């Protein structure tokens, strides 16, 4: 668990500082986040086919094979924990850096980055542990249940993106001077 949580928290806090700088460009982040959440939220919530941006990189087997267990855990944790370089089917993932950039305070942004990294890394580790327990059961049944679960998560992710889209629309209007 720690191998996933700590690298993820570190990576996300660094990313937070970087995106905090981007957040200084007026209206760029709110408008980009609004467009992103509307497009991907509608696709995921309505069940429309879409391609989520991201990498499909996989950990090379040479990094894992014949390595000590502690090094294997660190390799998996560092690469999968932050969730930035491996395959990710949920568009909500790439909204997170944009939400970080909405913070005006650098300290708050870094704390938020740490919390996001720890939350994602911890949740990812729990998922891996849960999958490991299910590996020995009926493979066909597991495949179907995984597919069903992914469709459900996409639906929930889409609804959350649209919730964020509504909020971002109000926020952007307030930045433009509208009295809400």
């Amino acid at each position: 668990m720690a191998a996933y949580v700590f690298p993820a928290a570190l990576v996300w806090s660094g990313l937070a500082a970087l995106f905090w700088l981007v957040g200084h460009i007026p209206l760029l982040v709110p408008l980009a986040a609004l467009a992103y959440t509307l497009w991907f939220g509608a696709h995921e919530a309505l069940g429309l086919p879409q391609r989520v941006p991201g990498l499909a990189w996989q950990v090379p087997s040479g990094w894992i094979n014949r390595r000590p267990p502690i090094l294997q855990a660190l390799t998996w944790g560092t690469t999968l924990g932050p969730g930035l370089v491996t395959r990710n089917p949920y568009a909500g993932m790439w909204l997170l850096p944009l939400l970080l950039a909405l913070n005006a305070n650098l300290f708050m942004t870094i704390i938020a980055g740490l919390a996001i990294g720890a939350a994602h890394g911890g949740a990812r580790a729990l998922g891996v542990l849960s999958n490991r327990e299910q590996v020995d059961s009926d493979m066909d049944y597991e495949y179907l249940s995984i597919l069903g679960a992914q469709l459900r998560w996409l639906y929930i992710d889409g609804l959350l993106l649209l919730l964020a889209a509504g909020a971002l629309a109000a926020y952007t209007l307030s930045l433009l001077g509208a009295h809400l």
Partner: protein
Amino acid sequence: MLEVWASQRPVRALLAASSLVVGFAMAILLLRQSHFALAVVIFSVGLAVLVGTGKLATP
């Protein structure tokens, strides 16, 4: 039962529109009370947990 109902296209559209409206209304309230920034952080952490846990579905 609930899942089948929620998967129908009109229900999906209704829930999607509701999410937009609820998000808009909640943001107005939070902006008026100056709690918007904190709410964004809490939402971000929740979304990170959801995305991380959701990857359980795609090992």
